[in-house]
């Protein structure tokens, strides 16, 4: 019985995601040139958003000229939830962004479930918080059509150094890994962070072990996401 139910759910996911086509005409471009993103959602009443680009019609194409390796994630909000698809555009010769090398390094996951008016708008708002409000470079991906993962670069933040550090530190930097899953009642968000520090006389970034910092920063971001409209 359980296996049958799982099969039906999986079939539904596959059929929903199969209706959404999203591709790029060139996955590698030279700096300054553009790539064409093309999509087709078939269901004209669906709400479509490309994270970082904005709302788009159900069928169409757009030329993009990213400065560096960028993932574009298309969100198709249907009556049943959302379906996400990601394409990558690599910019040859561009400077790499300092993303954490290993997602396993992210710590202290905090999760929360919430109802939202529009899942596509919420997913776009999460992107906006990370990129525009917090000034991270964000890489989105969707390994599963029913969830979207946001990985940010490592960014140095002055508020991560406090009085208890004395003058031992040159700085700390943080990256976030945010996962938003489609749920029948809304969305389920998980926030994790990875923090590094470097000592005052060093260039080397080292993994931070202060649990309170992880907890504080994860809580701050999750609260921010929970407060989104």
């Amino acid at each position, binding site marked *: 019985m359980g296996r049958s139910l799982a099969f039906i759910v999986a079939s539904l996911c596959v059929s929903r995601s199969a209706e959404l086509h999203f591709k790029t005409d060139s996955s590698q471009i030279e700096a300054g040139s553009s790539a064409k993103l093309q999509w087709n959602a078939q269901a004209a009443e669906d709400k479509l958003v490309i994270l970082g680009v904005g709302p788009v019609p159900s069928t169409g194409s757009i030329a993009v000229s990213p400065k560096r390796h960028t993932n574009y994630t298309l969100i198709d909000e249907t009556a049943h939830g959302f379906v996400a698809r990601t394409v990558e555009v690599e910019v040859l010769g561009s400077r790499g962004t300092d993303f954490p090398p290993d997602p396993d390094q992210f710590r202290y996951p905090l999760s929360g479930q919430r109802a939202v008016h529009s899942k596509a708008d919420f997913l776009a708002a999460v992107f906006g918080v990370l990129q525009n409000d917090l000034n991270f470079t964000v890489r989105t991906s969707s390994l599963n059509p029913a969830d979207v993962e946001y990985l940010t670069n490592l960014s140095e933040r002055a508020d991560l150094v406090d009085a208890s550090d004395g003058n*031992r530190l040159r700085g700390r930097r943080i990256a976030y890994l945010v996962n938003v899953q489609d749920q029948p009642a809304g969305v389920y968000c998980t926030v994790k962070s990875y923090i590094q520090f470097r*000592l*005052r*006389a*060093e*260039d*080397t970034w*080292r993994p931070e072990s202060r649990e309170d910092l992880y907890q504080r920063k994860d809580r701050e971001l999750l609260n921010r996401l929970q407060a989104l409209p």
Partner: protein
Amino acid sequence: MSGKKRPSGSTARHLLVACWAAGFIASMAMVFSLYVRGWIADDNFHASLTRLSALYAPYLGGIFGYYLSNRAKAGRAHDAGAAFVLAIAASAAWNLVIAGLLSRVLFFDGTIEQTLKDLMFFGSVMSWLVAPAIAFYFTSPSSQEGEANHEG
């Protein structure tokens, strides 16, 4: 001839040893200070000690060895002439560069990783200046201890 007093062979040896010992101790003290303050971690502390040891060992070892050797004690001291001036000048320059690079980390905004690279670079480049000067001093014609403080 010059009218200036030149240090005796013995004093010259003392000066040379003092220059190298002071440079080495100052450099080590700066590295220990960085470590004790928590400004560098264990790996960089060990790397710094290793690098300093590698830089100083050939010179300090040779100079101390000569200083403590029976030959030196027996009075086959060098005349504190041009060879000494060359050796002490090269030694002072070398030690000042090493100490200067390390003090940049301790007192300014330098980093230990970059400084270790700089130490390697300057240590290698300046060895062409220091090594011949010291070798010239050791191998130059010697004079008797009794000729100390003679007029040039």
